[in-house]
């Protein structure tokens, strides 16, 4: 009876997770979907609490209480701009839990683990461990606690590969001889170290790709736990998670026209790559704030193109105000969102949604590109790489082939940035030197706020 109840709660939870993720296919159904997934999680927890092996609830309830408080605090207070860091930290927690359960299972069954269980257990502990430290380092880099640029040294890739090979070697040995407890802990330790080494050479803007991969690993670790415990809800949830992370990283790589190997081992965005950009002839043209305000006020169609600078400047509310003022004057305002603008997939969408921009005004790359030809003013706000025409025109550029927002096709372009700073790729951007482009220097939030006032008086 009890077993049936538990199993049915798990089955229900699995179904609810799937429905939850299906809900995310549209903003209208997303909220309801998440409530279903939350309810699923609740069912799974309640079911588990009935488990016949449980003899005391003290530690369970204490753990749940502490975790919920910490989670709630993190959930409520973290600002939207810090989303990438938060996700990284959260991955670390989830992966650590999987790794710890794996270790506990190993200790429990040390003598009598069959091949299949030991393989799954080994996977679980390896993936869990490396995801824990990898995510922690990613968190530190994104939070600025550690330098965000790639940390490289000679022979790095070779060393990492050797370490990985050793870890896998021990894993295989363990599958055959599950009894060697020392080796088991050495394997776990090496996996912890490998997680750090994996993330070290990765620049902060490439972090989302790695984070998605880590997400995927955390999911696969849960799925492996499911194989160990013969628990299907773990397998399903873990696999869904694993695929989600994997697909997102593939999509990001495609949006940058880079291979996943290049992201993981290319140390992209480091000084060496930047050197290649070469000299740019011509000069940047600075334009006055008043001029731009007039241009905007009398335009028919304006497209805003936000990038990472919008996030650092926290300028999402300012841009929305400017859009409001313009729309009140009858100007059509749209937002062109590049899939990898900012520092995580969908970053710009969330920020603009936070500032109450309706999602119907947010246009994807394929939708907005044909519209630039009829756009009077494109306003680039703290974006750089995603509007770099070299990606389209210069086949020898390191970002050649990356799809871009073709703002340079519009009648006039205004670029808001603080100075001569480069984008994540470290490349010079020929857009800034085009005759059609005017530069407006300053922190994006300041500049936009001043633009609002200027437009109101235009």
């Amino acid at each position: 009876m009890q077993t049936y109840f538990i199993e049915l709660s798990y089955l229900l939870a699995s179904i609810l997770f799937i429905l939850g993720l299906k809900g995310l296919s549209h903003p209208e159904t997303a909220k309801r979907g998440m409530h279903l997934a939350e309810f699923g999680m609740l069912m799974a927890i309640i079911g588990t609490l009935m488990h016949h092996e449980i003899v005391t609830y003290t530690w369970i309830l204490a753990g749940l209480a502490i975790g919920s408080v910490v989670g709630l605090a993190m959930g409520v207070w973290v600002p939207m701009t810090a989303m990438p860091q938060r996700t990284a930290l959260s991955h670390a927690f989830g992966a650590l839990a999987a790794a710890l359960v794996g270790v506990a299972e190993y200790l429990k069954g040390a003598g009598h683990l069959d091949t299949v269980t030991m393989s799954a257990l080994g996977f679980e502990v390896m993936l869990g461990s490396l995801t824990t430290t990898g995510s922690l380092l990613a968190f530190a880099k994104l939070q600025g606690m550690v330098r965000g640029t790639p940390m490289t040294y000679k022979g790095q890739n070779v060393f990492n590969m050797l370490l990985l090979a050793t870890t896998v070697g021990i894993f295989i040995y363990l599958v055959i001889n599950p009894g060697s407890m020392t080796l088991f802990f050495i394997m776990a330790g090496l996996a912890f170290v490998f997680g750090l080494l994996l993330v070290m050479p990765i620049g902060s803007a490439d972090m989302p790709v790695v984070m998605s991969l880590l997400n995927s690993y955390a999911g696969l670790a849960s799925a492996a736990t499911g194989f160990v415990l013969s628990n299907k809800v773990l397998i399903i949830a873990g696999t869904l998670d694993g695929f989600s992370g994997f697909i997102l990283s593939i999509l990001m790589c495609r949006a940058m026209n880079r291979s996943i190997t290049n992201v993981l081992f290319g140390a992209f965005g480091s000084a060496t790559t930047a050197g290649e950009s070469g000299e740019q002839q011509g000069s940047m043209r600075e334009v006055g704030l008043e001029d731009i305000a007039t241009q905007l006020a009398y335009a028919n169609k304006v497209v805003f193109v936000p990038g990472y600078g919008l996030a650092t400047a926290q300028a999402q509310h300012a841009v929305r105000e400017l859009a409001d003022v313009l729309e009140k004057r009858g100007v059509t305002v749209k937002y062109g969102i590049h899939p990898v603008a900012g520092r995580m997939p969908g970053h710009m969408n969330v920020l603009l949604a936070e500032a109450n921009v309706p999602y119907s005004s947010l246009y994807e790359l394929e939708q907005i590109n044909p519209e630039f030809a009829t756009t009077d003013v494109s306003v680039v706000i703290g974006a750089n790489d995603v509007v770099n025409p070299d990606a389209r025109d210069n086949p020898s550029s390191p970002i050649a082939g990356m799809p871009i927002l073709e703002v340079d096709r519009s009648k006039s372009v205004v670029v808001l940035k603080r100075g001569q700073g480069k984008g994540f790729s470290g490349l010079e951007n020929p857009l800034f030197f085009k005759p059609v482009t005017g530069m407006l220097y300053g922190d994006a939030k300041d500049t936009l706020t001043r633009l609002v006032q200027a437009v109101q008086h235009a």
Partner: protein
Amino acid sequence: MSHESLISALYVFALAAFLGYQVISRVPPLLHTPLMSATNAISGISLVGSIVTAGAGHSTTSTILGFVAVVCASTNVVGGFVITDRMLRMFKRRDVTKKD
């Protein structure tokens, strides 16, 4: 692990993999950030394993390991869902925002 359990587990894994691919690839870029945090929350399902470990009382070590795992996993679950909800509440259609 019995032979039948393994086979069932493989079936469930294969089907979930397909389903994951189908479902996730239909999520629009607009919702990729919520997707990341939602799957992050769901991956806290290792809570299920953690709870049993923390409560089964096999040994002090495993109780401690289980307790820490419960804390971590439930942080992950609660934090993930709370923030996903928060994000999703922000996504609005034009008509709604026009009013404010």
